[in-house]
């Protein structure tokens, strides 16, 4: 059972997820790039109830870690810190916002696979990246509600995926599993899912459509 969530990044996305998590009953640790004291006032007012900490402290007792730093800064997070942790990667490679990042342009892996390989001992799940941060707090609805929105989840570690899906459900969304981490391409910037609004059925249909378009991997060919 997840009771404490550690959030790396106290920007737009990190603070919005922090409020959503507090609203859903979790304890929240949150960190920016510096000391906890630097963001204490900010956290008190903008994410009341969360604890402002350094990144290291924020993740130390967290059952689940959310990474919400600008993508080009992911290497400023020390990978050892996240060993063994379930880590949700909310980040996008979004050229109009991030600029052109050669390291992502030139790599055949998806951004979350690059993140996974950078945190080799973490159990990385990609989700929460395709919904606008301000919608996350306002659009959550109880399970079964006819207007409930759906959010896609990709990951290689089944138990970690299950934990992430439970979080999404508690935020008020239907969690839809898309497959291994590489299937995250289906809901990255530039896709029909990114920034759109979908019911569970619509999202499943979009994911199925995308999986038909994806080149087959070696294993599938054999």
């Amino acid at each position, binding site marked *: 059972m997840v009771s404490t969530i550690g959030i790396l990044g106290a920007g737009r996305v990190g*603070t919005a997820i922090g409020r959503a998590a507090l609203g859903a009953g979790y304890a929240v640790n949150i960190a920016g790039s510096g000391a906890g004291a630097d963001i204490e006032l900010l956290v008190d007012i903008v994410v009341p109830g969360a604890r402002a900490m350094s990144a290291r402290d924020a993740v130390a007792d967290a059952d689940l870690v959310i990474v919400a730093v600008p993508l080009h800064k992911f290497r400023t997070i020390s990978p050892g810190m996240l060993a063994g942790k379930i880590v949700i990667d909310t980040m996008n490679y979004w050229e109009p916002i991030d*600029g052109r990042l050669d390291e992502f342009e030139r790599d055949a892996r998806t951004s979350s696979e690059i993140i996974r390989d950078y945190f080799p001992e973490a159990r990385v799940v990609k989700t929460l990246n395709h919904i606008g941060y301000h919608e996350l707090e306002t659009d959550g609805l109880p399970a079964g509600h006819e207007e409930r929105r759906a959010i896609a989840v990709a990951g290689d570690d089944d138990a970690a995926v299950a934990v992430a899906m439970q979080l999404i459900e508690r935020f008020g969304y239907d969690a839809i599993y898309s497959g291994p981490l590489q299937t995250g391409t289906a809901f990255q910037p530039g896709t029909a899912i990114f*920034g759109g609004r979908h019911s569970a059925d619509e999202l499943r249909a979009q994911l199925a459509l995308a999986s038909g378009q994806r080149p087959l991997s070696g294993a599938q060919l054999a």
Partner: protein
Amino acid sequence: MQLGAYSFGDTQLNPDGTHRSTAEAVRNLFDAIVHADRVGLDYFGVGEHHTVSMPASSPGAMIAAAAAATDRIILGSAASIISTDDPVRVFQQFAVADAISGGGRVEITAGRGSSVETFPLFGFDLRDYDRLYAEKLDLLMTINGSTAEDVTWSGSVRPTLDNLAVVPRPVGGRLPIWIATGGNASSSARAGQLGLPISYGIIGGEPHRFAPLVELYRRSAAQAGHTGDNIKVSVATFGLIAPTKEEALERFYPGWRNLNIEMGRLRGWAAPDKRQFDIQAEAPGAYFVGDPDEVAERIVQLHGHLGHVRHFLQADHGGLPQEYLLESIALLATEVKPRVERLLAAK
């Protein structure tokens, strides 16, 4: 409360959907500012944008021209992307406009810009994003705060100024400098620490949810010892006023859709969703689209949450016909403004 408009320029569309000329868009923007002054609007903000659909690339030049052609309206950038500009130049352009205006009507709003096209355009590296903004804002404030023409400053993103004259000085000694932010909490804290007025650009969600950011801004200012007139908030949102709500929606929606299709293509968003639009166009959404009664009520309602001193609206995007922009501006000044004043006085 001051009411205003802002624009990034809006290139008109041909019947086949292609763009008309960007020069025409600039001329339309100029005409809209002059019109806003005639009908008594308080403020006009000129954004800095570098696309064919929104070509208001040079707020300083536009504001200087507008300063000569208007009498009362306050003119400002909304915002100047100072990270990729030279603060010496930005200051000079606005100080020139201030002199032409007779003084006291010209402001700078400094921002980072929500997109990054100015980085390749002016030859900057996105990896320097934070440092460019912080240092250039510091330089701009140093020049503005100087009591003499000669300015001394050094940093890493621009050559040192060693007792060099930066002229003209503003008529009133200083120009108002605002900080533009889209809702990043640390920007609110920083603006408060610097003691500068803050301008929130709210493009979606529920604007009243910015209340904690405003509180963070005010408390950060108080903690740093900044009090007084400079600690104030303005709000920029989408909005269009027409005689009826129905007309307002009809006029605003096509441009919104065009903009979102274009942005979606550029930024990889899904196709625009009418449901999203409908939610935003009703209270408590972020689009102030309606008749004068509704827009006035919603501005005053938001004022209850944010206590802002100025609210300004962007109506023209995606090829909004110019006549609708002009009518919206006239209604804002002559119909919305008195209602807002009445409602605020009754509080």
